[in-house]
């Protein structure tokens, strides 16, 4: 029995071991306050990372998530400021999400119509979207949003920070999409074997476009939560997210060849990365050593995970 369970929770065990080590090294780690802190920080990354997982499952990748995040939030920002009405606030949120979806759909269209790999298409989108964001913002920032909006980032309904709730909903939804719908079957079908999937009547181009649209949507959503927390929109946000999201998805076991990966495992990947960063701050690890520790810890965590998984 252990043989079937172990591989499925091997990553979770790696995360638990990491947390164990940290709580041994500093009593602050395991406090309720810090754990909620970590969960909140991991929420944003999780949202983007499940979008990334989606694109990786369909044998692609989305390098433009950080840029889409920046562009959509910058364009919507003026509508969200405190001087505007609640209606304009809702419009702003809709605009950001819609734009994220459109940009994602453009990526998907380019992948299917031009037959280019997602790497190239989203590399191009990454540059274009970021450049447009800078051109639009001219180096300025927009801030001072309505309290209803900043609540999204800083509020705590029932004591739980809003981002955690939003992330939980997104992950549950994604999981549901992937495991219980035709769309989900198409997604895994593309990853497993292109021709077989095509013959079984699934619409591959549509699935691909939807997959990238999903990634664009999650990027925009994460962006909204982000600027709500910061109470500022600037053109440069989200630059580090690309690699972090890919890292989280990869640590979570998502394969670059497609077909393998899950929303929950990606969340564990995101948690591993966030816990690491949190631990280094708590332990005041010298800035000089942080890059080394992050790199080494990632490799160790994954080796532990693989070792446990193959114990069966």
């Amino acid at each position, binding site marked *: 029995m252990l043989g079937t369970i172990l591989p499925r929770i091997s990553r979770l065990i790696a995360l638990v071991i990491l947390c164990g080590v940290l709580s041994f090294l500093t009593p*602050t780690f395991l406090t309720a306050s810090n754990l909620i802190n970590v969960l909140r920080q991991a929420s944003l990354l999780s949202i983007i990372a499940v979008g990334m997982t989606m694109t990786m499952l369909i044998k692609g990748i989305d390098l433009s998530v950080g840029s889409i995040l920046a562009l959509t939030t910058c364009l919507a920002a003026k509508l969200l400021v405190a001087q505007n009405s609640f209606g304009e606030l809702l419009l702003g949120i809709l605009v950001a999400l819609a734009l994220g979806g459109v940009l994602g759909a453009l990526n998907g269209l380019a992948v299917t119509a031009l037959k280019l790999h997602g790497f190239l298409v989203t590399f191009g989108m990454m540059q274009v979207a970021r450049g447009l964001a800078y051109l639009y913002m001219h180096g300025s920032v927009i*801030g001072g949003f309505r309290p209803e909006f900043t609540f999204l980032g800083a509020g705590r309904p029932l004591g739980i920070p809003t981002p955690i709730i939003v992330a939980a909903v997104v992950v549950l939804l994604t999981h549901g999409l992937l495991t219980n719908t035709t769309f989900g079957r198409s997604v895994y079908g593309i990853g497993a074997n292109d021709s077989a999937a095509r013959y079984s009547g699934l619409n591959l181009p549509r699935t691909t476009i939807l997959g990238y649209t999903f990634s664009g949507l999650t990027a925009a959503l994460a962006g909204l939560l982000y600027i709500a927390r910061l109470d500022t929109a*600037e053109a440069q946000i989200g630059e580090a997210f690309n690699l972090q999201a890919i890292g989280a998805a990869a640590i979570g076991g998502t394969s670059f060849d497609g077909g393998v990966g899950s929303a929950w495992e990606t969340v564990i990947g995101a948690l591993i990365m966030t816990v690491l960063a949190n631990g280094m701050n708590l332990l005041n690890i010298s800035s000089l050593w942080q890059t080394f520790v992050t790199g080494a810890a990632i490799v160790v965590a994954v080796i532990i995970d693989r070792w446990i998984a193959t114990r069966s």
Partner: protein
Amino acid sequence: MKRFAWLWLVFALGLILPGLAVAGQAPKTYTFAVLVKDSTTPFWRYLISGAKKEAKALGVEVIEYAPLQQQNLEEQMRHVEDAIQKKVDAIIIAPINPTAIIPAIEKANAAKIPVLTTNSKAGGGKIATFVGVENYEGAKKLGEYMLKKINRKGNVIIVEGNPAGQTNQDRVKGFREAIAAAPEVKLLAQQPAMFRRDQAMTVMENLLQTHPKVDLVIALNDEMALGSLKALEQAGRKGVIVSGFDGAIEGLEAILAGRLTASLNQDPFGQGSLPVRAAMDLMKGKKIEENIPTGGEIIDTSNAQQLLNLFKEAAK
């Protein structure tokens, strides 16, 4: 296959025609290259904006170069080389690294293009002038000012930028020396946030978990100071004072709003406009100073408004 023949024809025309157009042009105005450290941080946008405005007033052209990748040394070197190829009349540069920029400056020297440094110094090569603030001294001055505000007693956190950066190291040195000279002050932690607002916020959130009593947060630039402030405010921590560095417009506004306690003025607009003016003087054959100081004063509620008015005017 005929379409390929067309392609070759277009290509040939494209090579010849612009040459003809250039031949008939009026005498050109001076062109200066302005090289900054990255294309993202608002500080550099202010600098370029200052440079462009001065250029417009003087009737010269300014071409901006900024590494697409933050702090990419090789990209900056390529920018110098490309500027040399473009035969600009002067190179105004904020070197990412004083040592690594030397070969590039030497190339410019060999091409007889005057080099002016701004914001950060270069460690070698022939430089016409340096415009800017001494990071180390500015940091020390600001550090002492902030420590006095907490009566030289209490807990301090430093939020730094990029540990491998020269500017970062100079400022850290200044701040740490100020702290070392105050025996009743304890440095709780020094953590990196890459000069980013969002990263500083995350770092601060984490640090607040483990440090219940903090009196002073020293951030190495205004962006990080603002991020730290957000974290403090959302965590409901009172009684912590924060300082930044740069004199960014948002920083000034935060000082006037009573959130940020102080910053150090780098006069980003001046760091852009003054070297352009100096380069123009060089073109006219005038002699210029080796060191053109600008900014360098501590900004707090007493002078934030004037600076804000000045900068807002310059930013238009």
